[in-house]
């Protein structure tokens, strides 16, 4: 069955290829953007959040005329939540003629894609592709793995932690004893390092740190016992999805009185599920609808009109990232009716846009975006409520892109095409 399908596909391929060339004669092929996201399996909810942000931005780009007189085409691929699936789907995307690949959920997947893209570009000069990273935040992606065709449009462990620590310190809730608990892979390890690195700036002591398996643990009670034993006042964690929720629920059950400093507390479902436990906890994120004035309201209203909900979690960063891509596309001239990826990437390096949060620009040295960060606290008097509860995120402090930035890592040795 499978074999016969494969043969059929093999026979059909040349026909399809001819058809594409024929239509190509009639008019230029549209630019294809491939979204390589986790759309099924346990972490599908995260991938779908990225997708809704990306879809919104692409629709907006097409409503404004697309590129080279044609709408940009968004093709979605399901990487099934793992690097192996992502690697497979990247090949499929390349075969489909995708020139821009977008991905966000999981640094493990991001690490695979950036390596695959680098190798592909080395082996196929003239047919380069570019990786638009809207959510993988491990340091290595702009460090030892940094390469010319990778662009990160989100913060990273250092940026998030720096903002979180400064914001919580200013709110007077940081305390002198900090415990850090993280998932045991590139992102979690980077968060742990960042919390230790920021100790002097935050004026705290890291009393203990823990790395644990990612989204495998059901019972966090033993970890909470450990936090209690350490005497910590604040827990800083890069945990996401179930690992964050279960950790907070277990802390509440044990009557633990600590503040949580988080990165992903605004994932849909978290606040509702944590209930009152969530009050007083902090988050460092890319966007809060309450700050940014009328521009924010306009963005929120438009997003809500198009998708039915207020942009939360990773949606704003995905939108801002794709808006920068759109801006760079606008300033890239077609070469023989097609997009020259290297020319596009060179424009993208110097792209600068205004988002409701402020000025956002791409840093050419390591392709890390410089974006404002907002530190918010969960309270009942927030204007926009989360998950239909009476609680929401109230901004505590907005850091400009310059204030939030972390320096370029020495390990990034970028090789530019001529």
């Amino acid at each position, binding site marked *: 069955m499978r074999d016969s399908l494969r043969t059929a596909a093999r026979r059909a391929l040349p026909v399809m290829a001819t058809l594409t060339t024929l239509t190509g004669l009639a008019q230029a092929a549209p630019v294809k953007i491939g979204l390589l996201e986790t759309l099924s399996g346990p972490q599908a909810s995260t991938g779908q959040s990225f997708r809704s942000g990306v879809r919104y931005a692409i629709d907006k780009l097409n409503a404004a005329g697309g590129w080279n007189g044609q709408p940009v085409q968004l093709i979605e691929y399901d990487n099934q939540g793992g690097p192996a699936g992502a690697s497979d789907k990247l090949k499929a995307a390349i075969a489909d003629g995708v020139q821009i690949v977008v991905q966000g959920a999981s640094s493990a997947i991001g690490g695979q894609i950036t390596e695959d893209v680098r190798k592909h570009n080395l082996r196929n000069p003239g047919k380069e592709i570019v990786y638009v990273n809207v959510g993988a935040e491990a340091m290595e992606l702009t460090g030892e793995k940094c390469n010319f065709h990778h662009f990160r449009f989100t913060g990273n462990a250092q940026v998030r932690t720096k903002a979180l620590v400064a914001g919580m310190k200013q709110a007077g809730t940081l305390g002198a004893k900090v415990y850090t608990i993280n998932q045991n892979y590139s992102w979690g390890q980077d968060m742990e390092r960042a919390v230790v690195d920021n100790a002097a700036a935050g004026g705290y002591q890291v009393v203990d740190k*823990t790395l644990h398996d990612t989204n495998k643990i*059901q019972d966090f*009670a*033993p970890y909470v*016992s*450990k936090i*209690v*034993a350490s005497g910590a006042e604040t827990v800083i964690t890069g945990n996401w999805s179930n690992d964050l929720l279960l950790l907070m629920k277990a802390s509440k*059950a044990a009557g633990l009185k600590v503040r949580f400093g988080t990165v992903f507390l605004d994932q849909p479902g978290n606040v509702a599920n944590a209930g009152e436990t969530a009050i007083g906890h902090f988050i460092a994120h890319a966007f809060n609808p309450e700050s940014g004035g009328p521009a924010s309201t306009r963005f929120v209203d438009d997003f809500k009109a198009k998708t039915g909900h207020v942009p939360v979690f990773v949606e704003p960063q995905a939108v801002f990232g794709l808006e920068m891509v759109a801006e760079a596309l606008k300033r890239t001239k077609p070469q023989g009716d097609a997009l020259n990826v290297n020319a596009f990437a060179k424009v993208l390096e110097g792209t600068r846009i205004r988002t409701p949060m402020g000025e956002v620009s791409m840093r050419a040295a390591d392709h890390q975006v410089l974006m404002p960060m907002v530190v918010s606290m969960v309270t009942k008097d927030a204007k926009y409520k989360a998950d239909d509860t009476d609680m929401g995120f109230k901004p505590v402090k907005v850091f400009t892109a310059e204030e939030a930035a972390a320096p370029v890592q020495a390990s990034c040795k970028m090789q530019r095409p001529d």
Partner: protein
Amino acid sequence: MDTLVFALLNGIIHGLLLFMVSAGLTLVFGMMGVLNFAHASFYMLGAYFAYTLQGIVGFGAAVALAALLAGAVGVAVERWFLRRVHHHGHAHELLLTFGLSFIIAETIKLLFGNHPVDYRVPASLDFAAFTLGSQQYPVYRLLMGGVAIAMFAALWVLLTRTRVGIVVRAAIYRPRMAEALGHNVQLVFMGVFGVGAALAGLAGAVAGAFYTTNPNMALEVGVMVFVIVVVGGLGSLGGAMLASLLIGVVTSMAVGVDRSIADLMAVLGARAWAEGIGGLLTLKVSSLAATIPFALMLLVLLVRPRGLMGEES
């Protein structure tokens, strides 16, 4: 000392919860020879049933109803699906339940969405049972443990001390003879499968409120439940209890151990050497806590393939 008491208590209660889910799986396997891949899905169904019903009938009644509903789904699955493929052999039954687990998960996603739902411990049960040192112990955890122990006792009595138990055991060991004596073996199988599903549903309804109720909860607990059943011995209820407690306590204790093999080497004066090598030698035990059960399973399969209390086949 406080830490040790808490670690032990945490481990035992989590173990008891794992037992609640694995009991049904091991029972169904022991009696019907069906390795039910969809078993953890009944656990998830129980949680979602209870979540949906709690607004209408209150928490206690919702939990009880959820268990019954999960049991009813189990009965339906046995009656209209498993029975049809039974004569094709075990591989077909396994594939059927495997497919079923996907269908249940996707249906849940369609109806309730991808994110965790707002199912929480009711306020009336949300207080501390006791405080030791600076840490409180939630009464709900004790309740979960209590439910599991009551369930174990009830099952034990039912199977070993009642007439129903005798018929069930007879139908399992000598189905044809039991049938010849006028017992309805099909009904027994359906009943056993239903009870297994109901037990998982009960566990889900109770645990879903304490942990989280999301479309992945079957996956989260499913793997661990298989490990327990293998370690305890396929088909052995006592073995499942022993393995659950063992895994619960070992995982809980391991979290508190910030030691690595390098520390062990220090006794021999080889710490520097071990740290130089790094890798596995400097990995802390605590960061491996969730992996230890799998190592345990491997060990049991190597040393005692029939499991801790499994029968020799």
